[in-house]
């Protein structure tokens, strides 16, 4: 296993408030990782930095075998390089069908000119159906995604991420607002995805994290507080204090 993403010494502040403070974090090419932490620990800001939405004040973010810096790339370029991101709230294109949503996410040339003349090949269509089966939406392909249930939208978004074929998946609170059965399906999806790529899951819910059975990183006040198995970190004194002390 080789290193995929290396974040070192990153700090960022908003109007004097240090959202991320000298954060260092790294992940390997096929690894499932959970990031937990109380509100305001900097989980979402961390994702913003990796995906190019926020520029850090200092530090470096290196990507892949060639250690390319992500800091000078636009969001679109970072996404093309292989970083996929799922937002907290399901954000699918509600006005469009499940099929169109998946087709749009499919890994293909993304320049306006080639998209204008794009015609879905049979392989592309088959790939979309395959993805739909994976996320359990094969019966819903023709439906507008706005008509789907909350959980189905979350899966559709995960499906869109898989369609991008990213090497790193950043998933923000995937289980929020899901029924227990839906949670289980989501856990399976993420575990399956992590077999071939790196997956980082940001989550509040300890039970959900426990079910992922992976290494856990605890963030607090913008830096790493503890790292290790779920049992290891939940016995950590500082972690208990941060989670229960306030």
């Amino acid at each position, binding site marked *: 296993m080789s290193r995929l993403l290396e974040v070192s010494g990153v700090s960022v502040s908003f109007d004097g408030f240090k959202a991320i403070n000298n954060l260092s974090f790294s992940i390997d090419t096929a690894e499932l990782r959970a990031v937990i932490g109380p509100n305001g620990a900097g989980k979402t800001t961390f994702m913003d930095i990796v995906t190019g939405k926020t520029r850090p004040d200092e530090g470096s973010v290196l990507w892949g075998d060639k250690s390319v810096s992500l800091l000078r790339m636009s969001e*679109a370029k970072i996404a093309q390089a292989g970083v996929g991101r799922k937002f907290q709230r399901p954000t699918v294109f509600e006005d469009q069908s499940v099929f169109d949503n998946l*087709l749009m996410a499919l890994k293909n040339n993304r320049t306006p000119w080639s998209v204008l003349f794009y015609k879905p090949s049979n392989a592309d269509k*088959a790939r979309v*159906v395959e993805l739909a089966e994976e996320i359990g939406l094969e019966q819903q392909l023709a439906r507008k995604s706005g008509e789907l249930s909350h959980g189905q939208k979350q899966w559709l978004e995960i499906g869109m991420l898989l369609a991008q074929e990213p090497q790193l998946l950043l998933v923000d609170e995937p289980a929020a607002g899901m029924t227990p059965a839906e949670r289980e399906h989501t856990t399976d999806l993420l575990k399956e995805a992590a077999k071939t790529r790196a997956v980082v899951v940001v989550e509040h819910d300890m039970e959900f994290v426990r079910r992922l059975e992976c290494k856990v990183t605890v963030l607090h006040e913008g830096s790493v507080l503890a790292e290790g198995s779920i049992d290891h970190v939940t016995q950590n004194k500082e972690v208990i204090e941060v989670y229960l002390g306030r």
Partner: protein
Amino acid sequence: MTDQTSTLSASYPDGGAPRAKPFVMRHPSVLIFLACLAIFTVGVTILSEGFGIGVISTSFIKTLGKTLCLCLVALAMDLVWGYTGILSLGHFAFFGLGGYAIGMWLMYERTRLIVVDSMANAALPPTPQEISDGIATQIFGVVGASEFPPVWATAHSLPLQLLAVVLLPGLLALVFGWLAFRSRVTGVYLSILTQAMTLALSLYLFQNDSGLRGNNGLSGLQNLPGVSAPQSVVSMWFLWGSALALGLGYVLCAWVVSGKFGSVIRGIRDDEARVRFLGYSVEGYKLFVFTLTAVIAGIAGALYYPQAGIINPAEIAPIASIYLAVWVAIGGRGRLYGAVIGAAFVSLVSTWFTGGQAPDINLGFYTIHWVDWWLILLGLSFVLVTLFFPKGIGGIFDIIAERRTPERHGADLGPDQGSLREQEADE
């Protein structure tokens, strides 16, 4: 593989079998629109003075032809606003630039013919310099100049000016859009910026030394140089040309929004950041649509102003672009035929009200003069449409479509409450 494709064609009729059918067959609304446009054009031709029985006056033919051009620019507006979500309030600047580009050639060439004609009887044949001076004095005398400003360098050549019809609005949109989108100016700030652009352009053109005759604008554009046909015939040529442009523009826009490109731009409209994280360069797409629609607007303007006969800087005042947004909103944005209906309906009704044809209403204590009250009526209907009919006039077609196949899921199937009802029917 075959199994999967069959699943797909079952569940997604539009994406299943290889797309062998031509584009217009897959989109019946395009075909219906083209048929309506063809019927309209043939009907008007039969009723015209120039080629038919003369029921419709030539001036009304011109109004209809101009309306077709306004429909074309409304299509462009719908593409940029209704589909991509960029509320541009400056597309009439591009419309006006197209008009100026063609107007320069029309005015130059017609004046040249007049000058050559008047010098024909001179003892010595006039030199090119004398002809050129004569034309310049004729055109620019009104602003106190007698030589050609640099912007008229290509005015003598029809091909070059036709190229300018496309290039001028295209380049302006490209530069403006590149600067605005690169800085991630969005929403109402972009709208204000586009208003500033069209205002700046119109103020510049108002100056006498802008080289385009200041507030006099370019006039006499209805007379095609070297054509002796009467206006009743020329007006029909322009109506046909406008109808053809509108038809082609409609097919082009429908094609652009139909495929994956349409998916992406509608995605940009609904959630720009999400599209960016999918790996699409949102700025590139916006710039493409902005420039394409500016070119369409320029072509529409180049067909409009020869029918109007005159173009002056007031035409590209900020209010014109706002009207354009109002038409599209009333017609129903996000659907191409909605834009066409809105532009045609509002501009024709507007002509009727402001042309003094609408009867004044005498209330006893006050008389409503529609010329004064029309704008208030228009503003009011804009507010009402926005509040109560966000889909606009085009939304009526949805209601008709829904009526045809009533929604009866979960409806009562009869008095027997013991049956499994809909679930049973599914099994």
